């Protein structure tokens, strides 16, 4: 279908974009990479009066090192994330997860910030940001604020970003030398995750000294598998240890039942995939 009519602006700075959103009122929407939003418009599930395209704002693109953090501009495409040396070296989990998003064409256009702001529970990038304790930089009429990943995802398709605010960057602590794996289960190529597990672990001298695990599509928001993390830390690395720890993966989750999987099957998948993800990350 052809989208309903809307007005369109393409600001060249974050300040202009914030102003455009304020001027546009309640029905103004932000266009990032458009790989979820344009389908929403085409299906007429959304009918904004104004679309504010962030594609012309150079300051929102790119990856940089700021002290002990790696900062990714919200409009950095998935394609650029997967090829970025800083991320591959220091935040490998986000690189690994991003490689599994949709397909090449979508990764050429889709952006990290857009995917996170869309907050689809089956989207692949929220769980890694939660596991990695990322921070979200948000600009609005009152200036800039930072939200921790634990507070960013509020519900299905709902984040801490206010109606007049824009996600401008995602800040990651460095996990240099950690192993990482995003283990995704879906029925066919390019389908959404039925369940996926984002795991990054630090192994020193055969001992797991730290572990971060996030679950995709096990609730309306990503879930941190803290029970598994604490069961792993301090243990000698072995398949048996990992499989045993992974049994805690479904604790605190509330997975949905749908045509792809019942909630009990999702709980089963979370345990199996957590085991696989941690073993691959540690290997």
């Amino acid at each position, binding site marked *: *279908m*052809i*989208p*309903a*009519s*809307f*007005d*369109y602006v*393409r600001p060249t700075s974050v300040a202009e974009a914030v102003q455009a959103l304020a001027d546009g009122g309640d029905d103004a929407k932000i*266009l990032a990479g*458009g*790989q979820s939003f*344009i*389908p929403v*418009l*085409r*299906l007429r599930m959304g009918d904004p009066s104004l*679309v504010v*395209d962030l*594609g012309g704002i150079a300051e929102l693109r790119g990856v940089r090192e700021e002290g002990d953090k790696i900062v990714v501009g919200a409009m950095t495409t998935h*394609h650029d994330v997967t090829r970025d040396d800083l991320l591959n070296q220091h935040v490998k989990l986000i690189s690994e997860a991003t490689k599994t998003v*949709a*397909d*090449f*064409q*979508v990764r*050429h*256009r889709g952006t990290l910030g857009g995917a996170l702001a869309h907050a689809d529970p089956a989207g692949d990038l929220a769980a890694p940001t939660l596991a990695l304790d990322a921070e979200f930089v948000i600009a609005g009429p009152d200036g800039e604020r930072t939200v921790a990943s634990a507070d960013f995802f509020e519900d299905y398709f709902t984040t801490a970003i206010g109606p007049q605010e824009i996600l401008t960057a995602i800040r990651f602590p460095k996990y240099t030398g950690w192993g990482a794996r995003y283990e995704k289960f879906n029925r066919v*190529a*390019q389908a959404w995750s039925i369940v996926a597990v984002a795991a990054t672990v630090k192994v020193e001298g055969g001992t797991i000294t730290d572990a971060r695990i996030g679950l995709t599509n096990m609730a309306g928001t990503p879930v941190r598998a803290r029970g598994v993390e604490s069961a792993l830390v301090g243990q000698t690395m072995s398949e048996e240890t990992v499989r045993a720890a992974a049994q805690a993966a479904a604790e605190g989750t509330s997975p949905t039942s749908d045509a792809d999987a019942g909630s009990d099957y999702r709980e089963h998948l979370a345990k199996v995939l957590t085991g696989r993800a941690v073993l691959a990350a540690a290997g």
Partner: protein
Amino acid sequence: MARIRTTVDGLVYEDDVEPRMLLVQYLRERLGKTGTVIGCDTSNCGACTVHLDGLSVKSCSVLAVQANGSEVLTVEGLERDGQLHPVQQAFHDNHALQCGYCTPGMIMQSIDLLGDNPDPTEQEVREGIEGNLCRCTGYQNIVRAVQDAAQKMKPGASASQPATSSVAGGGA
């Protein structure tokens, strides 16, 4: 209405478009470039794949206004002096199509893939075209065609095409 200026298959176009106009609509309905087809209209099938500034995109998921100032390459811009692009020729030689509807998108995505990875394994070809659906062939001959094209496009191979410029996604 918004004024846009794009280079499509090597020619510059200037038009007023509604912001809601999709790039694929612009290509087909304004420029008459019906070689780029609309398959699913839900971003799944990849039949509408074109190159935008050298990268493959689904043109049903890009607004025409977003292409302002950009270079677009469609399947219609591939041939040179009446000669098919090596990937087009390989699709022909390997019978890599049955109904042919997915073919324009398959070819554009395959060219993008080979620009990135000039000698892909079978698995890499399958992953490279995962955003393109074919409901007839079972993909076997498509994968063969892409690998055949890769061999013929190697430096020193006998393909008589200026393949490198097209592989890089240049509009002309």
